[in-house]
């Protein structure tokens, strides 16, 4: 009997104009978002390669590694980040590496190209969060109250069908009607990725599957919610308005409002304040170093070459000491701020998780590697690189010239043309994002939340329909 009921439901849904139109729109959007993500990736990849090439080009013609004071590294565009933007367009992508000192990432995509910031991109997070949930609502809002209005509900239950089975059939068939056609659109989207030769690794595909599962779970939350509400109301227009209101608050208001509320409760010092503290300390250190410099005494004043050499070594030592002090200071200052920031983040996410949209967004961005952690993760990776770059410089130039090290160069009288450096010897910045397993582990909490929501609304639907007044 259950099978018959499901079959009837499916036939009804697939045959309806509502389904054709909503599904058509949804499919177009999903495919479009895949296509846009793919072309967006190719586009930023071209920009990235050009910027990287230019970075190496500026080293051409140098004859001394030590005279290379700084160079840039870039956050490489990730194919998954093009599908789930997260914060990847908002944080700085370029880091100037000197060999020493604190790193700051600059040039966020939106600051570079504000034109993309006006309407943002069409990514999977947005499609799931706003569109898919809206369509899930449209599919489910009149499933009970609509049947009642048409009089078919009494007819159906006039047969020997328990109510639980009827609602079960409703739930299963709506879920199938929602998920199955979407999967087709998503498959076409994946095909586009393959055709456009977006470099997806095996791990990336696995991540994408997890992202899609999260999206579908999220759609099911809104589907079960709207069925639950339609079992609570007697007129479909009322149930639609009720679900729509919940949708507006859940998808649009709660996440933003909770961030605001949290930022009011937990005060975090602005970046400018910490920067000013650090810059004051740094100029104080430089001043101290000037005094130290004037106390420098060479061991031998007969040979200027030895004097210069000793002086340079002395200056490098000073720079190392200064760097260490500065790092300690910066660490302390940054920690204060990041602790506060973490506290605020925790509070805002705890509040925002009332809405399943937040859970979905957090889960998919974590999986795609574009979550709130991206900023710190990139900086850590860059710090690791800076260390290897400093070692490389020590090996190549005998010293680490970064961080404003003062240095004296002797004028040589021999006119021998020095050899040029080979920029390709420079260590390459390899950005590694978190593995899919660790990402999935972080995202599992939010996935659990989504499942809990579904279970909650499922029970709600059974309960409400069990005592539904058919008259």
């Amino acid at each position, binding site marked *: 009997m259950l099978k018959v009921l499901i079959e009837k439901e499916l036939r009804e849904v697939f045959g309806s104009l509502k389904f054709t139109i909503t599904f058509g729109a949804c499919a177009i959007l999903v495919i479009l978002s895949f296509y846009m993500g793919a072309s967006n990736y190719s586009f930023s990849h071209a920009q990235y390669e050009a*910027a990287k090439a230019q970075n190496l080009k500026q080293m051409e013609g140098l004859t001394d590694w030590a005279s290379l004071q700084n160079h840039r590294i870039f956050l490489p565009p990730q194919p998954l980040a093009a599908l789930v933007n997260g914060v990847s367009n908002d944080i700085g*992508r370029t880091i100037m590496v000197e060999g020493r000192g604190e790193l700051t990432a600059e040039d966020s995509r939106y*600051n570079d190209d504000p034109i993309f910031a006006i309407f943002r991109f069409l990514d999977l997070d947005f499609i799931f969060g706003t569109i898919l949930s809206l369509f899930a609502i449209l599919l489910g809002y009149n499933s009970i109250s609509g049947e009642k209005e048409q009089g078919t509900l009494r007819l159906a239950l006039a047969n020997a069908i328990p109510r639980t089975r009827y609602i079960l059939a409703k739930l299963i068939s709506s879920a199938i009607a929602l998920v199955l056609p979407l999967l087709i659109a998503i498959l076409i989207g994946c095909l586009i990725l393959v055709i456009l030769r977006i470099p997806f690794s095996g791990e990336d595909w696995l991540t994408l599957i997890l992202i899609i599962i999260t999206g579908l779970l999220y759609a099911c939350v809104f589907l079960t919610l709207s069925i639950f509400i339609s079992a609570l109301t007697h007129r479909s227009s009322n149930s639609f308005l009720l679900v729509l209101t919940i949708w507006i608050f859940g998808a649009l208001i709660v996440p933003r409002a909770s961030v605001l509320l949290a930022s009011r409760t937990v005060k975090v010092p602005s970046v400018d304040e910490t920067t000013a503290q650090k810059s004051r300390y740094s100029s104080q250190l430089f001043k101290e170093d000037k005094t130290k410099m004037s106390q420098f005494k060479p061991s031998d004043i007969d040979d200027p070459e030895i004097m210069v050499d000793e002086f340079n070594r002395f200056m490098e030592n000073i720079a190392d000491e200064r760097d260490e002090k500065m790092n300690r200071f910066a660490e302390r200052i940054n920690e204060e701020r990041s602790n506060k920031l973490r506290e605020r983040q925790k509070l805002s996410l705890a509040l925002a998780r009332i809405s399943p949209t937040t859970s979905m967004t957090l889960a998919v961005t974590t999986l795609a590697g574009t979550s709130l952690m991206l900023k710190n993760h990139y900086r850590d990776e860059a710090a690791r690189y800076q260390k290897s770059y400093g070692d490389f410089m020590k090996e190549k130039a005998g010293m680490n010239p970064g961080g404003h090290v003062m240095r004296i160069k002797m004028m040589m009288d021999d006119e021998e043309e020095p050899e040029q450096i080979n920029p390709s010897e420079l260590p390459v910045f390899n950005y590694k994002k978190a593995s899919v397993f660790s990402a999935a582990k972080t995202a599992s909490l939010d996935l659990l939340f989504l499942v809990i929501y579904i279970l909650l609304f499922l029970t709600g639907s059974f309960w409400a329909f069990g005592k539904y007044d058919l008259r």
Partner: protein
Amino acid sequence: MFKTLIKKELRAIFNSPKFTAIFAVCSLLMLLSVYIGISEYEQSVMQYQTTHELTEQRMSEATAWPQVRSKAQRAPNPLQIFVGGLSYDIGRWSIIDGESSVKLRNTHYSDNPIYALFRIIDFAFIVQFILSLFAILITYNAINGEREYGTLQLVFSNPVSRAKYLLAKCAGSWLGLIIPISIPILLSLLLVVIFKVPMSGDDWMKTLAFMMVSLLFFTFFIILGVFISSLVRRSSVSFLIALLAWVVLVLIIPRTGVLAAGQMVYVPRIAEIEGQRDAFAKDKWAVHYNKLEERWRDRNAESGNCAADDEKIWKWMKEDDAARKNMEIEIEEFYAKLKEDYRRKKAVRERLAGTISRISPASAYQLAAMAITDTDLSLKNRYEDSMNSYRTQFNDYISEKAEKSGASGHVMIKISTEDGFDVSSFDSDETLDLDGLPRFEPPKLGFEESLSSAVIDFGLLGLYSILVFAGAFNRFLKSDIM
């Protein structure tokens, strides 16, 4: 008769539970968005002031003129309460000194990524997404709903022309929605007054113009709903079509338009442009050092390889300094040229993106709202330009002052085989008198200037509304009322 029809229409709208629910949600959202906007604005003002004080303090600690570095900030704009636009996406300040070029750094979103994850909802967002949906939900069955109830036939048994009926329908729906929606609008303006947001006369004019364009956009969707309801016989179908139109107009066209333009015109990253500048600068520095070496060789020969007196060395160092300054100007000019080319490419892309996405009234509205409130794309260039001219002013003042005072903060190192190593610095412990130092004045646009860049979008929105109305008219005159 016309009046009766409108009255009937108004009564029908006000009495429906649909209207009450949607109206309540919309009002709540509008007020919430303005409240959020005000508190965000207050936070940015606070941050602006803190940063300003810190900059002043840092400057006052300097003991030599070349050490003075300033920070020019973008001033918070009270209109970002209604239209956030790009104010959170563009860097907040730029370092102003002799070394670095002007560059807006530290965007609000990059400093606080959690805001970026959920975005800020502003009044313009509510109008663009929610209010348009609201308009469609109310009007999607304006005509075919009446046909389904049979009331359409009833009306036409009276001596009413179809034209008059349609006009009354549109006017009724329009009034029925505009009047209630002006309540939350007025309340949000009141909120701005209560929270004592410092708004100038021009700002109020701009707010007024922004509200006008919001209502115009709202009008478009009201008429669109009526048009679609005259197009299709069943209200359930017209609801779906209207929803589809909403998705396409509000969600798809704006985004795809911009992306398509981004694909057609390649613009490099700013890092690439800066890389080009750095390559040029490195070459120049190499040449500079070579010349320096040559010059010192000549000088050493001139003084017969003996240590020259301090006065002479001082003169030579000044010469070298002037040469270095000239080179720096050359680099700066080269960068300015690169930047101009970069901006030109961007402008081409922006125009193209605007043209494509303006097919949709939602983009026309968004662009108009941003232009009126000065949070649009020109914001970045405007600030960069005025910061550049401030930078020249600032540096001129600093070098003039540095010339006069001896303390340059420089270090002189003398090496000789007789005296050994001698390091002396040209420092003083006295702080500087910064009263005459020029301070950055944020650029301000007058009402006319801001409005003039939004005129096209005003016109487009009006045009779209008229077109849709004409469509509805044409359709309804020929339609079957049975």
